[in-house]
């Protein structure tokens, strides 16, 4: 985004300029630069939560909006997420050590028969960036595994992902299993994936359909606010 990038020395920028530059670096998927910027802010005495919220999450929100609006595509978002991951790697140990209380807890997984996890991983990363504790069950997850995770982790939110029209009906199986086990009301169920829509979400008994990772974060925050 900046033709004179080679001339920029991050450590010489003011806090405000550095944040702006980190937005650009996130947008351009420059992992090393985002990590460097994160470390500089920490060295300047910023606490990890502030770096997370004001630099990384705010930067990824710009990426999320441009993805939603069709300006950025999946490859660019993946590069941005990878850059955010580099910053998170520095922040996570500090956040854990300082006992920063998570905004909420989410269990997430791609349903049985489906191995696609790019969207799920983006959601997980964005949710983590937004201050949620995320338990990722991975891919090809059976209904019983979701139920067991609910009992073990007691999440506020359960997220399910599917990319295939052939696997999305399994979300209904999971929700029916939750009902049978009497645990459906314990958490908010969010669903997402390319072939889904709001109508499908409503029919299977989920609480909301999330079109993309940025929407998932907003919806999750909204449900947490309603719970408070």
């Amino acid at each position, binding site marked *: 985004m900046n033709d004179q990038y080679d001339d920029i020395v991050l450590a010489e920028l003011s806090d405000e300029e550095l944040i702006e530059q980190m937005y650009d670096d996130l947008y351009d*998927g420059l992992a090393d630069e985002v990590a460097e910027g994160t470390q500089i802010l920490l060295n300047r005495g910023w606490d990890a939560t502030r770096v997370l919220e004001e630099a990384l999450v705010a930067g990824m929100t710009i990426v999320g909006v441009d993805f939603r609006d069709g300006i950025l*595509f*999946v*490859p*660019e978002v*993946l*590069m941005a997420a*990878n850059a955010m991951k580099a910053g998170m790697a520095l922040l996570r140990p500090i956040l854990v050590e300082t006992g920063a209380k998570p905004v909420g807890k989410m269990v997430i997984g791609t349903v049985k*028969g*489906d*191995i*696609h*996890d*790019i969207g799920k*991983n983006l959601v997980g990363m964005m949710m983590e960036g937004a201050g949620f504790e995320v338990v990722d069950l991975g*891919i*090809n997850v059976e209904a019983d595994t979701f139920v067991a995770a609910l009992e073990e982790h007691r999440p506020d939110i359960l997220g399910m992902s599917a990319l*295939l*029209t*052939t696997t999305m009906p399994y979300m209904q199986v999971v929700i029916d299993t939750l009902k049978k086990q009497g645990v459906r009301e314990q958490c908010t169920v969010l669903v997402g994936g*390319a*072939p*889904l*829509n709001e109508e499908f979400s409503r029919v299977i008994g989920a609480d909301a359909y999330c079109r993309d990772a940025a929407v998932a974060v907003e919806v999750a925050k909204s449900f947490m606010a309603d719970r408070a």
Partner: protein
Amino acid sequence: MQERSVLVIACGAIARELLRIRDMNGWQHVQFQCLPASLHNSPDRIPGAVLEKIRAERDKFSRVFVAYADCGTAGELDKALEGTGVERIPGAHCYEFFAGRDVFFELAEEEAGSFYLTDFLVQHFERLVIQGLGLDRNPELAPYYFKNYKRMVYLAQAGSDKLQSMAKSHADRLGLEYIYLYRGDDPLRALLTPVLENSEAVT
């Protein structure tokens, strides 16, 4: 109007197979108009493009048929076709209608981590898969896309030696097990025959 003529609005990625099936069956009353195969990577644009073509051409033909499956449109193609009287190929995507429904579901059940190729995708792998996923610019993204895939299944229509060799190299490039499965044109032909065999029956 062209007497008893049928227009098939088709995905460009299956044009070669459609022409072969038409010639094999002697369907002189069937004409094809193809939309760009690149829509494969932008399924949200398929319903609008199909509908636009239907509106532009339907008065010139006695019947219109759409040679797309759902193709990642998440039901939006069916919504677009509602009220037009135009039908499409049943199924989720071209892998399903090229393999045949039962065979496709067996393959998916056998290994969920299967990445499918057709003749067209073998030939245009670089443009539609590598460039389409941005791997030409950012090869480091490959693990993000492919780490859960175990094998590449080439569902062959013609399946020439050259195509098989290309498909094998695509699998090797991504570090996937290579499976070759010749299906020919018969599964797709079986789906098209009832709707295209006799224009009078469908007018």
